[in-house]
């Protein structure tokens, strides 16, 4: 639940999602669910030369399991809060 809550705090921010097939999609985070499925608006592919078929895609749903990374805006991440939450979750999980 930690990362589900974390991503909910980032709704409305610009993120870059890198998929396991190396496709990188930049867009505005619209919503996220418990599987870390992600909905993005105003998307554009980082390497449009390589993936021209994605030019017309304006918004999309990404299945959580195909995500490799999500690159985030550091100024919108409270790292102290994250570490506390991770410690608390580690305590609760034992």
């Amino acid at each position: 639940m930690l990362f589900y809550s974390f991503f909910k705090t980032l709704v409305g921010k610009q993120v870059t999602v890198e998929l396991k097939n190396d496709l990188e999609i930049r867009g505005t985070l619209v919503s996220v669910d418990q599987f870390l499925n992600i909905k993005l608006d105003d998307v554009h592919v980082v390497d449009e030369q390589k993936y021209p078929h994605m030019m017309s895609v304006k918004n999309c749903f990404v299945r959580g399991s195909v995500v490799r990374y999500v690159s985030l805006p550091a100024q919108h991440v409270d790292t102290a809060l994250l570490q506390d939450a991770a410690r608390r979750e580690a305590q609760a999980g034992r």
Partner: protein
Amino acid sequence: MAEVGTAAIPPEARETTEPLDLVRLSLDERVYVKMRGDRELSGRLHAYDQHMNMVLGDVEEIITVVDVNEQTYEEIVQTVKKQHEMLFVRGDSVILVSPPTRS
């Protein structure tokens, strides 16, 4: 569940009684992460969960690409480096997490 048998473990060993405790003790430290697809990360660990989903800060990603020359079959190993200021890493691509080396 961890309460069972902890009395038998000496205090100095209690801190690393289960594998994930090693990761917990690496919070706010720089860790090395080996990933599927010949990728390596090093960055400051801010959060993790039981799936090894992680958030890392100040990350350097090193991607190893092996090209084979068509004529000579020579293997050319190239590394690509990428920087990310804040990165969520999905746990199913993680192979190992190594804590910082203590000197």
